[in-house]
């Protein structure tokens, strides 16, 4: 180095930060500012309605008249209400049967799609269709499919194939209506299950199947010992979500049957709406809605314990 002329170098000048810069560098303030939007949204759109709903459940509010605190009266009345218990029964039944159906068919579809098929990506897109169509729209389509007079199924079976003499009565009586709604819910729920399980299947390394193939496994054994156990963690998550969505379903039932015939297809959500808005008894409707909470807490706990990381998923500790 020849020159020793330091003044030729540019030296970064020291600038005193402004009070605003110092404020934003102060951690407590920064945390508060960053949390504010999210916390605000949650308070206004989640905590307030939930709190209002719970409060309403303990009042005798009706539309047009603010109610007074009546304690557990709404709940006491519900306990003796045959319709409420029928809705509880149908909600549980609807959730159980639809979930089993969705998972059986969704898993089967995911396993099929996981194979090498021609037009694979197109098939996957088609599978998603029932999921992307707005629920009300598909509900209206099902309404027509189940129509007493114009049902396409009745038309095909009676007029085209001649297997039956009379049209199906899908929505006219209690049990056929219940099964019809479950079928519609399964149809709508399959894509969600199939696509998420497909994502889960794709995380399973193909070399595990090759190793199992060399170990002498049959196709069923590969499913039983490799696919299923490795899919279980994601299966538990998807099932929890599916149970929650199905139990709280409203749109499909309300659009197709509105709880009928003779209130036989009411879910808790549709019954709560029925009592609260058209019926005007906001307090009673809120109480029915609040009564769903224990079921949902149970589903969440189920997921919490089922999702607890299994031993084989745990990190590489060397104990």
């Amino acid at each position, binding site marked *: 180095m020849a020159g020793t002329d330091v003044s030729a170098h540019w030296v970064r000048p020291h600038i005193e930060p402004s009070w605003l810069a110092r404020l934003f560098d102060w951690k407590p303030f920064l945390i508060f500012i960053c949390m504010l939007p999210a916390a605000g949204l949650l308070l206004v759109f989640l905590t307030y309605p939930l709190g209002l709903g719970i409060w309403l459940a303990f009042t005798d509010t009706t539309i047009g008249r603010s109610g007074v605190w009546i304690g557990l009266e709404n709940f006491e009345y519900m306990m003796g209400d045959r319709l409420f218990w029928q809705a509880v029964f149908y909600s549980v039944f609807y959730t159980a049967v639809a979930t089993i159906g969705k998972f059986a068919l969704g898993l089967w579809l995911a396993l099929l799609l996981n194979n090498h098929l021609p037009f694979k990506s197109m098939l996957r897109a088609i599978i998603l269709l029932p999921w992307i169509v707005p629920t009300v729209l598909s509900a209206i389509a099902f309404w027509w499919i189940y129509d007493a007079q114009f049902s396409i199924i009745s038309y095909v079976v009676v007029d085209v194939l001649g297997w039956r003499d009379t049209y199906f009565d899908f929505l006219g009586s209690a049990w056929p209506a219940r099964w019809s709604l479950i079928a519609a819910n399964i149809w709508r729920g399959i894509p969600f299950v199939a696509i998420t399980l497909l994502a889960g299947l794709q995380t399973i*390394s193909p*070399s*595990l199947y*090759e*190793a*199992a*193939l*060399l*170990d*002498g*496994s049959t196709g069923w*054994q590969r499913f039983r*010992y*490799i696919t299923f*156990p*490795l899919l279980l963690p994601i299966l538990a998550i998807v099932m929890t979500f599916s149970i929650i969505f199905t139990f709280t379903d409203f749109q499909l039932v309300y659009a197709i049957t509105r709880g009928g015939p003779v209130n036989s297809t009411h879910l808790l959500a549709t019954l709560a709406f029925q009592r609260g808005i058209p019926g005007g008894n906001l307090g009673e409707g809120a109480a029915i809605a609040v009564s769903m909470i224990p079921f949902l807490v149970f589903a969440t706990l189920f997921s919490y314990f089922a999702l607890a990381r*299994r*031993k*084989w*998923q*745990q*990190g*590489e*500790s*060397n*104990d």
Partner: protein
Amino acid sequence: MATVSIREARKAFGQFEVLHGVSVEIEDGEFVVLVGPSGCGKSTLLRMLAGLENITGGEIAIGGRVVNNVPPKDRDIAMVFQNYALYPHMTVFDNMGFSMKLAKAPKDVMEREVGRAARILGLEQLLHRYPRQLSGGQRQRVAMGRAIVRSPQVFLFDEPLSNLDAKLRVQMRSEIKELHQRLKVTTVYVTHDQIEAMTMADKIVVMNSGNIEQTGRPLDLYDRPANLFVAGFIGSPAMNMLEGEVTDGHFRGPDGTAWPLPQAGKAGTNGAGVVYGVRPEHLRIDPDGIPATVQIVEPTGSETQVALRVGEQALIGAFRERVSARPGEVLPISPDPDLVHLFDRKTGRRIDAGQPA
């Protein structure tokens, strides 16, 4: 234990042929390494042997039985995968015993066999662990244990050491070799690492773009590479290659430098289009040698590698003695004429002594 013969094996994915008819004969108990750059078809060949890929043409026989249409589980082979393919939700014991469980072996037989394999590999303390809780080398051993439990006729290894760090790789290399010497099971081992191939194999099969370039014992490949590809692939650092012509009993490099020829090759080998190959370790410092400019000096302790330049030609020299030369200085070098290899530039084939170029 069994012999393996691969005869004119071909593999095509659709229209695209990746193996163009390769033949390898493997003797009973032999350790054969398939080596080559990525995409040369070595893994495909191994997977065809395992039955994970079907065979487009030709024949593969294990123990004299043609297995082209035999499903993998009936081929009596065991394979160790590059990523080990251990079942993450099973303990080491269950991983190793899975094949016996599927075959509905009695529990005590299973415990005995898994115990035997675990003893061989030193895994007795780890049998209750899950793969996640194991180190890379331990997982590697479990994968081998799973293969041993099946007591197969042929072991297949698909780049089993490429996920390990350098030190562990050297250790596992000798463990695998020791295992082979102990069990004496025919083994086919795929790697892209020529050092692994050289150190482990009884026989090396060098592959390149779907063809076999040369088959032979490791030192034969090193001493007499059949073509330019093998010459460049085997040996580290790679062989120096100079293009030029042979005139008047000398090889003339691109800038006219004269390089000595092997004694036996002086007569007869005349002509242009010759590649002159000399391994870095066969160059020595010689005051009467060819002046070369030092570019980089890399001491590794046991030897010193020096990047040199003769005219426009870059060369690597590996010297046992410590070189004190600094970059920019001139270091006279000369090759050992008897360890020089000559190749035909056009065909890439080796030119043997006395044979016209």
